């Protein structure tokens, strides 16, 4: 088993677990946090597949913009933002 | 409640107040004469230059009198509203000043002991708002039609009025200046009764 395969398995498993946690999380902001994790893991998978440009754009657009947009969406549409 | 759609109003087209630089030619005697003709039962005196005085003012006439002061005699500014405890009665002292005529009128209104209430003038001058609140806070004098007559300096839920004369300071806080500033022998703080005095506040 080569070290690349180990790397791939770890990252892919992380992506899957994070995706599951994203779906199952009761707190919606946590879901967004996990979602960002999923996207970063996928970017790492792109790096592993030698698609560096796609990986970088994945981080720049999805983590840098889409997640923030989702978070703003969550926080601007909920009645009670703060927890206490 | 606030206006739900706040707008920022630039001061364009507002009244120009630069005429206040030079004093008006109206003398204090003319103001007194004007007040005498309008309110014959009110006694207005000239104490010194720029200082008018008006004692034993009937409290029912207050808002009418103040409206006249503001609208016809250009008294723009409430310097102060002070409460007072005369022991036989309550008293509210108004100091209303005119930038234009450069004079100040002092109005002393006595309120009966059993009914410490008077009409508010905060509708006429916004500056009187918190002074009236403070007077209520300290003396328990209520101002009718006041927009928000609540405690301002003491905490909410205070059940006494500290500036009333029958509000006793704690004895061991009170310094006996007649005996060369020595504190009397401190008595133990026992109950709240000494603190609240025998006042009904």
């Amino acid at each position: 088993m080569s070290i690349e395969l180990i790397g791939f398995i770890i990252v892919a498993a992380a992506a899957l677990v994070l995706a599951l946690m994203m779906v199952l999380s009761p707190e919606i902001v946590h879901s967004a946090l996990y979602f960002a994790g999923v996207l970063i893991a996928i970017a790492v998978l792109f790096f592993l597949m030698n698609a560096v440009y796609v990986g970088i754009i994945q981080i720049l657009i999805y983590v840098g913009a889409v997640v923030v947009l989702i978070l703003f969406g969550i926080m601007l549409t909920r009645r009670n933002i703060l927890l206490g | 409640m606030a206006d739900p759609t706040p707008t920022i109003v630039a001061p364009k087209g507002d009244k120009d107040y630069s005429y206040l630089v030079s004093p008006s030619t109206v003398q204090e005697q003319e103001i007194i004469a004007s007040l005498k003709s309008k309110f014959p039962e009110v006694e207005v005196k000239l104490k010194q230059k720029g200082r008018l005085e008006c004692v034993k003012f009937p409290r029912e006439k207050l808002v009418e009198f103040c409206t006249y002061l503001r609208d016809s005699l250009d008294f723009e500014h409430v310097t102060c509203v002070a409460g007072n405890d005369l022991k036989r009665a309550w008293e509210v002292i108004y100091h209303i000043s005119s930038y234009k005529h450069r004079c100040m009128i002092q109005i002393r209104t006595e309120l009966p002991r059993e009914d410490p209430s008077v009409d508010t003038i905060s509708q006429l001058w916004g500056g009187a708002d918190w002074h009236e609140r403070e007077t209520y806070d300290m003396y328990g004098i209520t101002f009718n039609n006041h927009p928000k007559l609540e405690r301002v300096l003491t905490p909410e839920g205070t059940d006494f009025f500290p500036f009333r004369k029958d509000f006793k300071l704690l004895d061991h806080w009170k310094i006996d200046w007649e005996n060369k500033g020595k504190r009397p022998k401190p008595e133990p703080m026992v109950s709240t009764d000494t603190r609240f005095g025998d006042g009904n506040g």
Partner: protein
Amino acid sequence: MAMAEMWINMGPQHPFTHGLWTLKVKVDGETIVDAEPIIGYLHRGFEKLCENRNYPQIIPICDRLCYVASMSWDHVYVSAVENTFDIKVPPRGEYIRVIALEIQRIASHLIWLASFMTDIGNLTAFLYAMREREMFIDLLQALCGARMTYNYPRIGGVSQDMPKSFPQQCLKTVDFFEKRLKEYDYLIEESEVFRIRSQGVGYLRPSDAINLGITGPALRGSGVPVDLRKTDPYSAYPDFDFEMAVEKDCDVYARYRVRMNEMHESCNIIRQALKKIPPGPVLGKAPRHFPRGEGYARTEDPRGEAFFYIQADGTDRPYRVKIRSPIFVTVSAAPAILRGYKVADVPSIMGSLDMCLGESDR
């Protein structure tokens, strides 16, 4: 929108509250829709305190009214007593009072400048202003030996004559300070960022300002030429020739300009006073027994119209003392000024009003 309408408590422990007070701000997003000032954290029952002290004993506690302008509060108290009992002050006493008051005004305005610049984020100006204030505090120390609570005016004059070297030291300081004021213009006024933070922010219409009872630099910043040193002269002020600082812009910048110009004018007055000061005693005769009577005095505090009302019942203690603090009224008008602006404007607007909680809570 869910962000809509939440109350933010700014204070009592918040960097913008110079003192101990709370400003509850109701915001819609970042826009202020309502505000409510809450004061009273420093309430000491000052007026009741005065009722339990005899007349000279009240002077030191007047120092504690405003901790950055003690001298002017001492002065308004002693002039109220003098008005009540018709006590004459020797002219030299009046002149020294005027000098002390103007030094105090500059020191107070410098504290205001320091805190205002901190509010809008320029710490350099804060340190510069504090540096210059030190010189004026040194002057006051030379006059009365204290740096913060002066206890200098007395009923009927001032406690002691000024030291021999004082006029020279004072003139030197004033000349030096006017040079420094030009330096401030380079640092603060010519900065575009400062202008966009202060111009067009915190409009206060002149009619509103008058109606809400706002006095002092805030009122003059709204274009209303009212300065009690001119319009209701007291002490030795009629002897001096000075300009009233008035700006017509009605915004934070105008209030800033008014205070900066007032510092210039104060320097001017100090120079004239030092030139014209007559010889003679500094402390007049005060009566041993105080008769019945009532009286008041109002002066132009660095923050606005200070007013002291005294009722005397023939004993050695006042029967009733009422203090009108300019900031007490100004802070009540805060909601009217703040409404419609952003949360980020709160420090700059409230900073331009020059809060001092010692005098407003009393």
